[in-house]
């Protein structure tokens, strides 16, 4: 616990150690990603840690602006220019090599080889995931040929196979189509095919169901579940939608203002929520059903990212606020059960303050 709290400000120069990977595919440790601009510094991600094992599905949820996308952009190192990883490790177990993605050159060989091949990403907008002036196949084949030494014909066949896999109605024809000719559902499938074209070990899906209607959303979840069962990749599912998390994922991490406030199994977090923020989120949902449930605002407003609250970031909105403690100190992550951790003074951490 204490280790997670000792957030270093400089990037660890030492070679990553396999120690403590515990068979994890990816281990994010005390990740800190900040944005630097004229107005000041935004600590978009400020000490987030989680592990994901091969084939596991992890959900990340939280209100808008809490740092979900920045976390995923940090993993793939595709942050906007003004964003920097200022601390922490992102350890990725690639075959028998352990790579710290946080310290690699963002556009260097190592990361380029991993992107699209070992770790792939699906984004929110299927329409804009493809270049409008290139065919669907052009971009899938390009990805395949970046990562595999295969002929054009071979890559073409693989692309058609992947399009079939995601349920495109006529793969041989769809491969030469432009996205503006495809229906919403087909675009979504094409986008999944694009991300999965090299059968990645880890798929990061950043709100893939937010911009589409309910039917397509349901199809999308089913597709992801199918493909996951089929290819066995791990998935990080980022969403506003707690229903999606409940339906799809094994474990879940709840974030608030760049911090992780609670994590555990879906069972733990949904049926025994501990953190006041998690409880607030769950309470604002009448019934859990995918597609219908969005996180509704909890009382109070999300603080301005340039003026973060002191102490516990949630103290400005927390119903259980402990005066003299919460606004002065940051609560450490405390285990309330095996694999179920919460960062809140209600569950300990005050002793260490004296």
């Amino acid at each position, binding site marked *: 616990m204490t280790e997670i709290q000792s957030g270093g400000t400089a990037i660890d120069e030492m070679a990553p150690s396999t120690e403590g990977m515990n068979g994890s595919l990816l281990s994010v440790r005390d990740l800190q990603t900040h944005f630097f601009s004229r107005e000041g510094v935004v600590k978009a991600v400020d000490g987030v840690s989680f592990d994901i094992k091969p084939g596991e599905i992890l959900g990340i949820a939280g209100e808008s602006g809490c740092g979900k996308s920045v976390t995923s952009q940090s993993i*793939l190192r*595709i942050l*906007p220019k003004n964003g920097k990883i200022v601390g922490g490790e992102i350890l990725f177990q690639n075959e028998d090599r352990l790579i710290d993605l946080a310290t690699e050159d963002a*556009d260097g060989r190592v990361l*380029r*080889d*991993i*992107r*699209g*091949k070992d770790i*792939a*990403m699906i*984004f929110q*907008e299927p329409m*804009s*995931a*493809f*270049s*409008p*002036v*290139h065919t669907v196949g052009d*971009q899938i084949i*390009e*990805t395949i040929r*970046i*990562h595999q030494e295969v002929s054009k014909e071979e890559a073409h066949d693989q692309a058609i196979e992947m399009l079939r896999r995601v349920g495109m109605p006529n793969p041989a024809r769809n491969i030469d189509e*432009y996205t*503006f*000719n495809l229906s919403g559902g087909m675009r979504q499938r094409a986008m999944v095919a*694009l991300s999965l074209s090299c059968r990645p070990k880890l798929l990061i899906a950043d709100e893939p169901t937010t911009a589409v209607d309910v039917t397509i959303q349901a199809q999308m979840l089913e597709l992801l579940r199918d493909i996951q069962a089929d290819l066995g990749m791990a998935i990080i599912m980022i969403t506003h939608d707690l229903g999606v998390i409940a339906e799809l994922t094994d474990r879940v991490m709840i974030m608030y203002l760049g911090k992780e406030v609670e994590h555990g199994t879906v069972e733990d977090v949904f049926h025994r929520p501990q953190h006041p923020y998690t409880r607030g989120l769950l309470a604002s949902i009448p019934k859990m059903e995918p597609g219908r449930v969005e996180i509704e605002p909890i009382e109070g407003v999300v603080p301005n990212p340039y003026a973060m609250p002191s102490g516990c970031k949630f103290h400005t909105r927390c119903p259980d606020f402990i005066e003299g403690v919460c606004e002065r100190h940051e609560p450490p992550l405390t285990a309330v059960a095996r694999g179920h951790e919460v960062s809140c003074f209600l569950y300990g951490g005050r002793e260490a303050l004296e």
Partner: protein
Amino acid sequence: MLIYILRRLLVMIPVTILISIIGFIIIQAPPGDFVSSYIAGLEAQGDIIEPELIDSLRARYGLGEPIYVQYFKWVSSFIEGDLGYSMIYREPVVDIIAQRLPSSFTISLLSLILVFVIGIPIGILSATKQYSLADYSFTVVGFLGVATPNFLLALVGLWLLFKWTGTVAIGLYSPEMQNAPFGLAKFLDLVGHIWLPALIVGTAGTAELIRTMRANLLDELPKQYVTVARARGVKPTKLLYKYPLRIAINPVISTVGWLLPVLVEGEVLVSLVLGLPTIAPVLLDSLMQQDMFLATSIIMILGILTLVGTLLSDILLAIVDPRIRGAV
């Protein structure tokens, strides 16, 4: 694609008719009917006009008949290649245009090429290195390029060239080459003279293109498909040219059409200052002296060239951008 081209051609027809109506109005603009003013002009210069000529001209242009008949008669003689007679040059208009248009065209084309060769790379550099020293410098130079009148640039160019080389870069050929038959030597002489006007005529266009290119690329770079391509492992260089550049350059292609007449326009003062035998000074002269057949012919030919240019750039655009083909 074929349908697209056909449709574009169809659209050109009403526009061409519109241009010809405007041309006709210009001819009609001076007081009195145009044959009378035309003949008055000739007589003022001391010519003896036979009455038969006057009658045949009146018949030819249908004077005295309803205005639309006049219009049709004028248009059909225009189409037949009879553009009338210039009173200030005392030559058939066709001959004047045939002499002058090629050098105008060469200068404009060369400017166009220079505009692209200089403007596009600088625009790309400015966008990819946004807010860098280079970006700021090019922005300032670009503003100067737009703001400085061409004739001033021409004067400065003349003066600098004279300072450095001692030659006076007036005209398109050196005096000794003026009447030489066209061959390699004359061509080289032309090349030596033509770059200065081409460069000057192109400055405003270049500055404009740098700005467009920069803005377009800055629009495209943050788009999601670029991030997605990056997340697929595409190399940074390819990330620039395969996707965003391809799209950012499309609107630039469509500027070719309207850039040509702008260049011809920009040529007027430059040609006057540099004494170039292009069409621009002739247009100016003809308008000032109300030589309406000459003026109208030049305006119509420029108008039609613009239309053809626009058509070409639209076809080019449809070739490179599937969205436009798809929208047909």
